[in-house]
Structures are given as C-alpha cells and as structure tokens.
C-alpha cells in the first residue's frame, strides 16, 4: 500500500523526533525556507570550516512529518561532508525525488542510501514532493549565500 511507503517507520521516527533540531552559537551560514501553501517552515544553520567542510549543521522548523523527517535525515547525512560532496548529495537526492529510481552517489554508505530512500514514497504524492525538498533547497540557499527566503511557490 502506498501510505505505508510514504509513512515508513523511519519517517515517522524522524518526523516525531527530528535529529539536529535547534540552533547553535557559531554558525556562519544559514537560510530560511517557506512553503506558503501549507505553512511549512525551515531554517537551516551550518558551520562551514576553513576546509569548506560542514563541521556542524542544525535546523529549526515546523511542518508535516515528511518535511521534518527530510530535514532531520538531511542534516545527519551532511555533517562532516565537504562542499563538493554536499552539492553532489543534494543533486542526487533532488534527481531521485524528481524522476530517478535510485541514488547514484558513491559518497554515502548503503545504509545511508536506504535511509534517504525512505523519503522516495512522496513520489506518488505530487502535492507532497515540496514537503520533502524544502529543506534541501534551503540548504542550497545557505551554502550559496543566496539572499532572501526560499519560497516553494517562487522557484521552479
């Protein structure tokens, strides 16, 4: 059944108890994302160290189980990744959500891939895809110092 795919145990767990929730003192990059249609909000904070590595990442937000789980899993995977790896992972994830059946990136383990694939259930729910992608677009915005807020209804 599709609902079981969407609300897998892992999603429900991360949705209810998001990891890396909160803010930390010495972040040097951050961005906000907002889906005005449903009210989901996320604020990503990260510290990019001198080697362009994410030494810490956290998020604040409120929203549905899908968006919270997505932010939670994303922050777990991004910790200690270097900038090119971050980019690769984001691209890989967004491609998978859009049309690719699987993740191709070699920089995460099979277990981590399985974890990330737990978000693939949204593909059958077009109205919910934006819930899963909002934190990722917000991370892009933080990494690239894009001014303003990510708005799901404004970018394509």
């Amino acid at each position, binding site marked *: *059944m*599709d*609902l079981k795919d*969407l*609300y897998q*145990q892992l999603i*429900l767990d991360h949705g*209810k108890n998001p990891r890396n929730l909160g803010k930390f003192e010495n972040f040097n990059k951050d961005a906000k994302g907002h889906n005005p*249609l*449903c*009210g*989901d*909000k996320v604020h990503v904070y990260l510290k990019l160290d001198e080697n362009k590595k994410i030494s810490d990442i956290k998020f604040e937000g*409120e*929203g*549905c*189980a*899908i968006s919270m789980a997505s932010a939670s899993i994303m922050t777990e995977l991004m910790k200690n990744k270097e900038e090119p790896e971050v980019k690769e992972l984001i691209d890989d994830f967004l491609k998978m959500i859009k049309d690719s059946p699987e993740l191709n990136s070699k920089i995460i383990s099979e277990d981590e891939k399985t974890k990330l694939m737990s978000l693939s259930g949204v593909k059958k*729910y077009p*109205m*919910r895809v934006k*819930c899963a992608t909002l934190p990722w677009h917000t991370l892009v915005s933080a990494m690239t110092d894009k001014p303003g807020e990510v708005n799901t209804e404004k970018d394509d």
Partner: protein
Amino acid sequence: MNIKDIKKEFPIFDNKVHNNDLVYLDSANSSQKPKVVVDRIYDFYTKEFSNVGRSVHYLAVAATNLYENTRVLVQKYINAKDPNEIVFTKGATEAINLVANTFGQKYLKEGDEILITELEHHSNYVPWHYLRKSKGVKINFADVDENGDINIESIEKKITPKTKILAITHLSNVTGAILPVKEIIQLAHSKNIPVLVDGCQGAPHLKLDMQDLDCDFYAISCHKMYGPTGLGVLYAKKKWLEELPPYQGGGGMIGEVKKEGITFGDLPNKYEAGTMATAQVIAFGESINFINKLGIEKIEEHERELTKYGEEILRKNNSVKLIGSPKNKGSVLSFTLDGVHPHDIATILDEDGVAIRAGHHCCQILHEKLGLAATARASLGVYNTKDDLDQLNSSINKCIKIFNS
C-alpha cells in the same frame, strides 16, 4: 430531505477515489455540481450559444434573456430590491476588489481607516491593502475572541471617527462563526459607515434577505453554491452602483464613445465590461433553482444538525482538538490532532476517499492569532450525511494509529 436521493443528483459521487466512495468534506473550498448545472452548460453551448447583448439575431436575443433571467433569480434568492443591484464578476474576489478599488478611488484619502476583522479570508484583506499604498489609508482589525468568534463589542471598539468602511465575513471559513451581521450593520450605519459583507460562506448555507440585512455590499462566490467556477456576484445598493466610478473599461459598459470623451452605460452594464462568463451565468440559474427546489431553510436545518453531530463525535475523540466554538456555528469543522500535522492528516484521509483541506485556508492573520501554522478542515454541503462524518472520525483514528505505531 432525503440526502441519498440528493447525492444521486451529483455525478461526481459515481466515481471512486482510491477505490473508496468519495466522502467530500471540502465544500467551503468549492462545492460539487449537480447534473442539472453541468447539463445546462452543455445544452447552452450545443443548442443556444451566442454572445449576449450585442446582436439582434434570434440566438443573441435568446441568450440575453437567459443571462438576464439569472440576474432576476439571484435578486429573488437574496431578496434584493432591484435586479440592477446584481453585478456578475469573475468571483467573490473580484467583487471585493471592485468595491475596494472604486470606493477607495472616490471616497478615501490619507489617514482614513478601513475596519476588517481577524477572521477575514485573504480576499477580504488584500484588496483593501492596496489602498494603504495608493491612498495612505490605515487598516484596523477587530479582535477575534478565544472561541473564534467576533462579537459586536469587538467591532464597536475599533470604530473611530476616521472609519470609512467596514468589511466583514458573514460566516468564517475556518471557525464557522456566523457573525451578527445585522446588528453590526445597524451599528455601522448609526455612524454613517457603509458595510461590505463577504458572503462566500453565507450564501450557500444561510437564508439571505438584502433588504432586511440592509448591507451596502454583499459578495458571493458561485462555485461554492453548487454553481460553475469563474463566476461571482456583487450585490450593491443601487445608490452605490450609481455613485461609484466604473471598475474596468471595455465593450458593453459604455454609453457613447467619442474621440473627445466617453460616457458610461446604465446599470448593470456599467460594471460588466467585456464578454462575460455567459455559460456560467446561465448555468448558475440552475444552481439557484436546485437550492430553491430543496429550500434553503431545509438545507440550513440539515447542515446545522450535521455540524452539531460532527462537533459531538469529534469532541468525544480525545486526540482531536476542535478549532473554534463560536456561539453560532455553521458548516465548518476545523481541527488539529495531537502529534499529526494537518498535511499528514489530509494525505492519510485521502487514501480512504475522505477529501478535506489542510493549511491556513487563506486566513494567515487568524492562524497567527491562533498560534497555528495550519489546521485541518472538514466542511459540509447539502449532500453530506452522518455516515460521512463517521467515516471522517474513523479515518482520523487511522491517522492516530499510524503515527502512534
């Protein structure tokens, strides 16, 4: 009223949603359409089509008569004094924009105040907002109370000598509060303030009488009244339609057009520029006939009973928190669930064929006041039954089960 028979008049219920019967609880957003309305659109295009008001041939005359016939049906439905007080628009949104724009242009100046409420739909706030910039007016908000209600005192408190117009909803699309509009209008008129009522949720559910209510403007959304999309009605007292400037310019709304100047047409043409939503207007006549055949009082009674039943079963469900317990509640059951976000609720309910809405329902001011980013909303129409509400409740229990497993 036999609801089973009424439901049969709506072809949409012949379809399955995810292999389940459709339980449609999103009528505050838009109602479903009875077959008579759908057929009327088909018949008009296949047998009677012509543009209205411009040609003298047989079809044009017949189409014009049908179009004007709906105007009279609307007039009678809301008991307006004169059919020329009925203006067709593209929706309630355009009806409110028409008033904000023309009234603002003619009567408002810097420092003037517009009074609305915290319950308003974006459609009854954003059109007024433009006047902040263009005219330097101020918008005040009457406070909603902890029951999601607006009483006459909260309006009175916010009226000042600078208040130039009052714009209020008849029935809140989130809390279901039915405002004491008649008393509010009397109060405003005693201070010479005209009143616009956003009747989007009033017109489909409550018996209306414009002459008794005495409001200056009343906005209606036809697609929430078992009618076609792309159509709304503005009721306005004749003196306003005569005094206010035209809204849009174009064909049909003119008197004489010369190089050195233009005069405008008589009512109601003055406000209906260009080719109108002809088929929709004609089909909307069938929506009114449909409502009249059942009787709006009967519909009101049926929906009141259902609302009460829905409140009862949802209150018994310990995980559900109902949003809004106004004194007078109509057809809307908004709620939240402990630990389940409204969007997750809506997705899980949809799997059972239960259609509700989740989000801020175009009322961000109210949601901010409630301290909620989103709510789930079940809203009722004439075709709903207690079984629908029982199904809602059992699907809600399924959400709880999924999220607590």
